[in-house]
């Protein structure tokens, strides 16, 4: 059970860490000042959540690795984030669509995880849920504004949905790790979380006058460490200082 919990904590922590890093790339490049500040705030929340999840993962593993060690000193295949969060920022529409698909998943997940039989996991979920509500409102409102906005904005977020939809499926991975944790009462019924997610996403997509792509291909692999080409470049930047000056602190 310990191994499964460690594995799942990496999925949670890496989702937060990698998306937090991606969103931080907007710092100084936001379309307007307020949006620049909003995205760096969201990024900070996500990296804070990653700290909590990875710290706990290190404790569960029991091999003396702390959150920094896990964040900076693993190789690409050892990262268990979903393929969705590592995708490039693209334009603002792509970034918001990625964020929205992710926030809509984190909302029901954390809501249910608050009641996990694992107390520390429940505590992190309870804390993170409050932040996720702000993130969700921000991203969902943008999707509706952009989708139901001008011809140009509509076309761009529609394109974003078309290209990201296959990776959104990778948020869910019904494998032996999830099943074992569900049976132990550590994870909620993930099929319920998924249907809640889908219901939410459908409602917002329809209000935004967008449509789902005809192609329903699902691209999986992130939870098993098989990533798209984009993660490697991200890690090269994320890990640069620790790889160049091992164990440096400031």
């Amino acid at each position, binding site marked *: 059970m310990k191994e499964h919990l460690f594995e799942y904590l990496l999925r949670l922590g890496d989702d937060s860490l990698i998306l937090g890093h991606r969103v931080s790339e907007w710092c100084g490049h936001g379309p307007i000042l*307020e949006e620049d*500040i909003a995205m760096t*705030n969201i990024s900070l*929340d996500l990296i*804070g959540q990653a700290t909590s999840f990875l710290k706990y993962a290190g404790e569960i593993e029991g091999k003396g690795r702390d959150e920094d060690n896990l964040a900076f000193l693993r190789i690409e295949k050892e990262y268990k984030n979903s393929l969705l969060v590592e995708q490039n920022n693209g334009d603002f529409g792509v970034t918001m669509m990625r964020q929205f698909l992710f926030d809509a998943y984190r909302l029901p997940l954390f809501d249910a995880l608050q009641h996990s039989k694992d107390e520390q996991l429940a505590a992190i979920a*309870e804390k993170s849920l409050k*932040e996720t*509500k702000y993130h969700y409102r921000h991203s969902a409102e943008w999707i509706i504004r952009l989708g139901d906005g001008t011809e140009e904005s509509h076309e761009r977020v529609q394109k974003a949905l078309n290209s990201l939809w296959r990776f959104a499926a990778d948020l869910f991975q019904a494998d032996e790790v999830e099943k074992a944790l569900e049976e132990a009462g550590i994870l909620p019924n993930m099929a319920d979380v998924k249907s809640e997610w889908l219901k939410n996403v459908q409602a*917002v997509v329809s209000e935004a006058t967008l449509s789902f792509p005809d192609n329903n291909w699902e691209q999986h692999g992130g939870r098993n460490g098989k990533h798209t080409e984009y993660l490697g470049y991200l890690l090269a930047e994320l890990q640069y200082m620790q790889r160049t000056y091992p164990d440096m602190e400031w």
Partner: protein
Amino acid sequence: MVKEQQIWEWLEDVFDPEVPVLTVVDLGVVRKVNVSAEEIKITITPTYSGCPAMRVIEEDIRRKLLGEGLMNLTIETVLSPAWTTDWISENGRQKLKEYGIAPPEDEVDKSLLFAKPLIVPCPNCGSRETKMISEFGSTACKAHYNCLSCKEPFDYFKCLR
């Protein structure tokens, strides 16, 4: 042995580095002070997961209490129950307002989309003619508002529940 009450009084000298009018006690981040023969244990909780002030707060508490001669000190961070703005003391709310930051108000359900932005009275002139500029402000705990009467921009300490 030092009394718990005395420690709480000392903690009143430790200020939040981001909102320097509030003490860590006003802010509600100090959850517990346990005094036993072996050690003194302070339990703190973060306002937001990624709040960069937490490490500084911990160091400041340690420095203050070491300065008062307390040696066997443990500071523990807990996440549950999660911090809420309801834990900011009445005194703290008053200080925020005097400092020019509007204290948290009751807010509608955060899951509602396009909810009407909350009316936050201007901390400078008291006008209710204000406008939300952004839900995200200079730190994770604040939103950005503008007063339509006195034309001053101001921070709003947003409600977290």
